[in-house]
């Protein structure tokens, strides 16, 4: 089986699931990494250190910014000449569009969000979650090549072997563009939810602290949001102590406590951390589907009957405003921070 693995990066910062895809491809046979961009030598060399047999690089000033149409045309030309059986991608905002378009060019199609792959000769059978993770389907792709994007943390990350070398081959960049990139406003993003090993999440209950006195002049809704933001400050402190990310339930997002980008479940984000700490989250069906791949769930909730306790390994029936800061203190002490 011959596999191309697309290494997704933003200004040289590689999306970690790219290496997971590379490790997966190596377990099937030959794995050639594919790197597009401008000035991407370091990314190509790192791909060799993560086990790529070879790296194809399209390095061109016109590829400095990701644009779906130039990247797709470059990949289409490369796939036509190198005829892989399979192209693997990490699932990211960029690769969904890139794979979608290149597959149209090549008369194939894409399987997204793979969480399991079985190999049958040169074909794959892919397991992926549907209906927000409430169901799994096993699908095949009859086109050539097969395009598969894998979900982050679903497959093991290979070890980086410093100094491992190999062939880096230049390939042609296709630069006919329809769009122009005007600029970026890059957010101070912490650990992203999809890559996080630990997620501390807040729900509707995060505003439920009547003892907090909001500043004067706020109406009821503003006061509720103010209380919730104090709650999310505690949650953020616990998350950063554990090197993790902050999540939220749909109820907390809809109530305006925290931006949509933090939402877990309801196709907000399906996450797969080692540890998921749910604070003031009752556990609606979409949320429980969204955290199905979490290895361990801890629930902190005032309501002992909340459905979240049914999926939790450890539970605390109590006030998150007291428990969460105490937990932060305990971990700081025990982890020597």
């Amino acid at each position, binding site marked *: 089986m011959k596999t191309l693995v697309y290494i997704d990066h933003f200004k040289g910062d590689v*999306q970690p699931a790219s290496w997971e895809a590379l490790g997966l491809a190596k377990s099937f046979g030959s794995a050639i990494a594919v790197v597009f961009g401008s000035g991407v030598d370091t990314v190509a060399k790192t791909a060799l250190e993560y086990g790529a047999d070879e790296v194809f690089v399209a390095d061109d000033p016109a590829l400095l910014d990701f644009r*779906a*149409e130039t990247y797709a045309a470059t990949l289409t030309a490369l796939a036509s000449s190198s005829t892989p059986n399979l192209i693997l991608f990490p699932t*990211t*905002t960029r690769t*969904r*569009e890139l794979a979608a*378009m290149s*597959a*149209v*060019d090549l*008369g*194939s*199609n894409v*399987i*997204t969000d793979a969480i399991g792959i079985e190999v049958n000769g040169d074909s794959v059978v892919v*397991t992926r*979650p549907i*209906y*927000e993770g*409430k*169901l*799994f*389907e*096993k*699908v*095949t792709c*009859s*086109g050539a090549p097969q395009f598969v994007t894998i979900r982050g943390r679903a497959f093991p990350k290979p070890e980086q072997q410093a100094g491992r070398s190999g062939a880096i081959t230049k390939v042609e960049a296709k630069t006919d563009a*329809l*769009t*122009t*990139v*005007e*600029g*970026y406003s*890059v*957010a101070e*993003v912490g650990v992203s939810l999809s890559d996080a090993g630990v997620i501390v999440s807040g729900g509707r209950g995060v505003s439920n602290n009547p003892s907090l006195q909001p500043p004067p002049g706020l109406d009821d809704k503003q006061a509720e949001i103010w209380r919730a933001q104090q709650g999310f400050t505690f949650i953020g402190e616990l998350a950063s102590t*554990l090197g993790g990310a902050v999540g939220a339930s749909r109820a907390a997002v809809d109530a305006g406590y925290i931006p*949509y*980008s933090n939402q877990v479940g*309801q*196709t907000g984000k399906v996450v797969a951390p080692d*540890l998921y700490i749910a604070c003031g989250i009752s556990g*609606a069906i979409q949320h429980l589907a969204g955290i*199905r791949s979490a290895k361990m769930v*801890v629930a902190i909730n005032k309501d002992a009957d909340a459905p979240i306790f*049914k999926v*939790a390994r*450890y*539970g*605390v029936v*109590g006030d998150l405003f007291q428990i969460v*800061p*105490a*937990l932060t203190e*305990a*971990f700081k002490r*025990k982890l020597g921070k």
Partner: protein
Amino acid sequence: MKIIACIKQVPDSEAKVRADNGAVNWGDAPLVINPFDEYAVEGALQQKEATSGASSSLSTVTALCIGPESAKEALKHALAMGVDDTILVSDPALNNIDTVGAARVLAAAIQKIGGVDMVVFGRQTLDSGSGLTPAQTARVLGWSMLGLAGQIKVEERSVTVDRVIEEGRQSVKAKLPAVISVVQSIGEPRYPSFMGIRKASKATIPVWSLSDLGISAPEAIVKRAELVNPPARESTIEIIGGESPAEIAEKLADKLIAEKAL
């Protein structure tokens, strides 16, 4: 400006969905407009309002949907929100299409409508959730793809969007016509108005078949081999109690460290 909002009908997100003899069973849960597509309708209506004053002719929004007869209800929701008209593409041969197939059918419908400047999609659907159809429709049409827009601005014959990506926002500009997918930061979908609901209840929704589009049924390239209920979570809960929050936190932290959960 002529704007198309592409929508789909899906089981409500509260539905308990199960695999039942190889078929998806959502019980008696209602079928609704895909929640992400409400944002597409909202984004399309915002652009209609933003551009109607500027150009000599009024802008319009048409909601376009592939689906069975029941999907008319999703289109009626879009009408009630304020779209000008609707088209349902319905044909028994479309029951098992994949995303590329849907893109080819939508592209054919968009070309038949003619003179379209902008096509707006939601970021993904709640059912299959692959999020591929917007970019594939753009590719079939040969138009620009501006994905995951949190903001859309039209000037003359070009459009600039703020794409919401992992690292923040990327501002991208393209000439019209273009295909755009939107994310939630485009703005909360408006509630159906009283007038809109009345209009929707009286509306006759045009139905186009594949022969109306002049294309044959696209064959699925990605096919489902099996449907599986996810394994139930085996969890026996241990409730951590104690005299004080500090004591509870102490016990819980010790357990988590001992289980190597960190």
